[in-house]
């Protein structure tokens, strides 16, 4: 029985599922004598047609690893990734090459993600050469079309990447990703390296492109405000595990997981008055060593509501009022919140020191 079965469809899943990630596990061999680093530890979520899902987490949460594993740029230990019902993880080499047409990626660093020796026509044209086998003139027509679509002039077709600014390069990377009409685009911290106003331009562009082409987007980011804006649903992960998933509106207004609550509370609000008034939850300590995770909930070492049960049992994903799922004992074994958000708890719980092992 996998994590996603046996659950009402309304909870954490999309209406018309396009991409389904189920119980994904990815690990790396640690350096030297260090043990295995379990980067992704049973992550499941779904992405609907023409939907944008945000995947948020801090560094070391495994969010980028999820994206790369879906793309099969790194091997997964176990789990399933289905695109339109077709399993991606078991595809053979040539099938995989063909399937890569449907899932594309935009990377964080707009500078290293393009071969400096190629002109824009070749950068954007590469997927067309490789996948579509287009003739040169046909290809260049399509490249010009794509440039236009991402807000660049087709006069730039023979220019080199070094001539463009970071934001412009990211537009080129988006054009490259869209070249073969993919079904899904994975954006891995695609706007993190940009200034705020450039960031907004790119986000607006992505929304326009989604409206035009109906492409689905998995938006991986650490910036909560950006995810709040672009994603209809959000998946919050911590140390390779899903803590909470659900409609962005609900999560951002009434987080059900203590980690999501703390994460949101930590984001400074650009308003001095609110900033002075608001009570912040400042998490103590730092994430534990990823080679030596707690048996139970990975968040137990920093959680202010931690109970004894949290230390040795990982809670199941449980439905929450207002939509979505949360993996927290407060919802199941603890003071019964009956599927409500954390604000309902009302009491200021003292953090307990989890048993060390």
């Amino acid at each position, binding site marked *: 029985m996998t994590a996603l079965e046996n659950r009402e469809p309304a909870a954490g899943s999309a209406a018309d599922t396009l991409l389904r990630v189920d119980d994904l596990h990815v690990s790396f061999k640690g350096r030297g004598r260090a043990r295995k680093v379990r980067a992704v530890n049973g992550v499941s979520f779904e992405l609907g047609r023409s939907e944008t899902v945000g995947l948020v987490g801090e560094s070391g949460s495994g969010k980028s690893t999820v994206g790369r594993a879906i793309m099969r740029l790194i091997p997964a230990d176990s789990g399933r990734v289905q695109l339109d019902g077709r399993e991606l993880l078991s595809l053979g080499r040539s099938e995989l090459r063909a399937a890569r047409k449907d899932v594309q990626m935009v990377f964080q660093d707009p500078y290293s993600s393009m*071969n400096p020796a190629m002109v824009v026509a070749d950068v954007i044209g590469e997927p067309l050469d490789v996948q579509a086998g287009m003739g040169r003139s046909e290809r260049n027509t399509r490249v010009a079309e794509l440039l236009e679509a991402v807000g660049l002039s087709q006069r730039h077709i023979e220019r080199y990447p070094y001539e463009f600014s970071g934001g412009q390069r990211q537009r080129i990377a988006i054009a490259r990703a869209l070249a073969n009409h993919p079904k899904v685009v994975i954006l891995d911290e695609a706007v993190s390296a940009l200034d705020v106003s450039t960031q907004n331009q790119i986000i607006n562009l992505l929304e326009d492109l989604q409206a035009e082409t109906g492409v689905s987007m998995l938006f991986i980011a650490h910036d909560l405000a950006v995810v709040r804006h672009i994603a209809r649903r959000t998946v919050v992960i911590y140390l390779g595990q899903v803590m909470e998933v659900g409609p962005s509106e609900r999560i951002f207004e009434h987080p059900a997981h203590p980690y999501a609550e703390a994460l949101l509370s930590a984001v400074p609000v650009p308003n001095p008055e609110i900033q002075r008034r608001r009570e912040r939850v400042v998490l103590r300590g730092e994430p534990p060593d990823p080679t030596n995770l707690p048996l139970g909930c990975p968040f137990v070492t920093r959680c202010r509501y931690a109970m004894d049960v949290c230390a040795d049992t990982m809670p199941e994903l449980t439905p929450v009022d207002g939509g979505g799922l949360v993996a927290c004992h407060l919802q199941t074994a603890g003071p019964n919140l009956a599927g409500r958000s954390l604000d309902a708890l009302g009491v200021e719980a003292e953090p307990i020191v989890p048993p060390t092992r």
Partner: protein
Amino acid sequence: MADRADVAVPTGPEVWRRHAQDHRVEQSLDESSAPLSARARFLRRFLQQRPAIGALTFLVLIVLAALFAPLLAPYDPDQNDIRNLLSGPSGDHWLGTDHLGRDTLSRMLYGARVSLLAAVQAVSIALVLGVVPGLLAGFFGRWVDVVIMRATETIMTFPPLLLAIAIVAVRGPGLFNAMLAVGVVFAPRFARLVRGLVLGVREETFIEASRSIGTPAHRILRRHVLPNILSPLVVQISLALGFAMLAEAALSFLGLGVRPPEASWGALLQVAYNNINRNSFQAIPPGVAIMLCVLAFNLLGDGIRDSLGKEIRRGT
């Protein structure tokens, strides 16, 4: 203020949204000049490197002198002149003569052929023996990498000149054997360089981006890896040519390279050294020639490196 507006100017988020919408496609790009290809950018930067230009000019002149040695040389390089043994520079013999009365200038010109050719030979051998294992080690990694790298480490434990001498000892003295030895000594250095470059390029996101498109491995190697390691390799080839000249000169000086009466600059130095008590001047021209050539290869290499774009300068 005089022009103060009576009607309030609309302000706030809506204005900015509309403003951004109006300027959506206005992406500034410096279009004052035509786009330059990587090669054109390289050439433009290279032409600004005065020492490198000087070095290149010098090397071209030396190569021409070597090519046209029969036309330029005032005497037959092997012709003895018993009336002029170990003479100093004079109108007849601009650079004097050696102990057999042979004209030093003529021998220098013919020696340039030998020295240059030997350097090219040694570096070509080193490239053939080094680049392929380096590519394999860098691209395949795992045990291939381990084996190849261990082998290069072992070879590099030998002092280079000593290893060359040992190889000459086995194969017997002679220019080709000497250059083969120098090539073998150099090969592991090229192997390591190429491996490092390949590893560096492999880490780049653009390789990952290309893989994610579904680009087959051979195309990645051809379109992404090779173009990005070629330029740093050229830099090293230029430097290696200098070192090979030094190595040839050393082996010939020790009597393990070129066989008499053929001349190379190292062999000329040996003859000059043997007669140093009678005429010290003869030691100057071949030494200066070697030094200037090596210097030129080094300056050229530095110049090429400095002309490469920042983005492909890694690893050099």
